[in-house]
């Protein structure tokens, strides 16, 4: 993963929050996922990437931020345990991942349908053979993060061949 790919996720997060939620976001300094996170994950939307780039994108919030963000997105107060809340979180990570992958020039990348995990203090295990970077963000709704763990398909093939 290179710096331009991290920049793509910063830009796509900014684009989605500004366009669909009318919220301005500020990105902090990215750090590796082994560093102690700045807040406890309570709501996470997850997307898989395949093709020329493989890996995972995780959009994580504390519950209070998630509720504020989803209110800004849907115009409604939602119970975090409702299926509609999970659907909205999934759609956010879908748009962030889709807009970021469009900036990977010359790469053919597909994204999966999103999954959503809700629960206090959960951890999403990223692929062990990919560098995982966390991009912290702040918006009027509170702090949140985008974790990115992707690798080029050639690297993935080499790792698989070595393991075989």
């Amino acid at each position, binding site marked *: 993963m290179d710096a331009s790919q991290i920049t793509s996720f910063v830009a796509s997060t900014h*684009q*989605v929050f500004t*366009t*669909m939620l009318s919220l301005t976001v500020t990105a902090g300094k990215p750090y590796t996922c082994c560093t102690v996170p700045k807040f406890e994950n309570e709501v996470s939307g997850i997307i898989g990437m395949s093709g020329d780039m493989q890996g995972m994108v995780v959009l994580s919030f504390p519950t209070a931020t998630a509720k504020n963000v989803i209110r800004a*997105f*849907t115009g409604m107060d939602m119970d975090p345990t409702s*299926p*509609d809340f999970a*659907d*909205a979180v*999934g*759609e956010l990570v*879908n*748009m962030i*991942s*889709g*807009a970021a*992958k*469009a900036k990977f020039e010359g790469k*053919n990348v597909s*994204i*999966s*349908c999103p999954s959503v995990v809700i629960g206090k203090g959960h951890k999403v295990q990223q692929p062990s053979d990919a560098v995982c970077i966390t991009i912290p963000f702040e918006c009027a709704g509170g702090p949140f993060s985008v974790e990115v763990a992707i690798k080029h398909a050639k690297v993935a093939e080499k790792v698989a061949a070595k393991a075989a």
Partner: protein
Amino acid sequence: MKVMLVDDSKTMRTIQRNILMQLGYKEIEEACDGQDALSKLAAFGPELLLVDWNMPNMDGITFVKTYRAQGGKSPVVMVTTEAEKTRVIEAIKAGVNNYVVKPFTPDSLSQRIAETLSRTKAA
């Protein structure tokens, strides 16, 4: 005018429904994937379809190809996160009339719908 929204995200269908209602469209049917949309086509008879690309069971491209193969003539606007030029070309080849990339503003979606309908009317 009868409009069908095909998207696996209820949030996205609600956002699009609200925009359509503001534009004065009242007859709106929703489907959660391509298969669901195919099963509702005959009864509803949409005059415009807004279709997502990535959906479980049957994706948007397969749905549009099937719809065209069955003789469906109504205009289709693809509303998707797939923004690469190759994807847009693939969608047009499948029978899509216009393309909106998510995230979108209400204005950009409204503009694409108006553009699509006026082109279809002129043809």
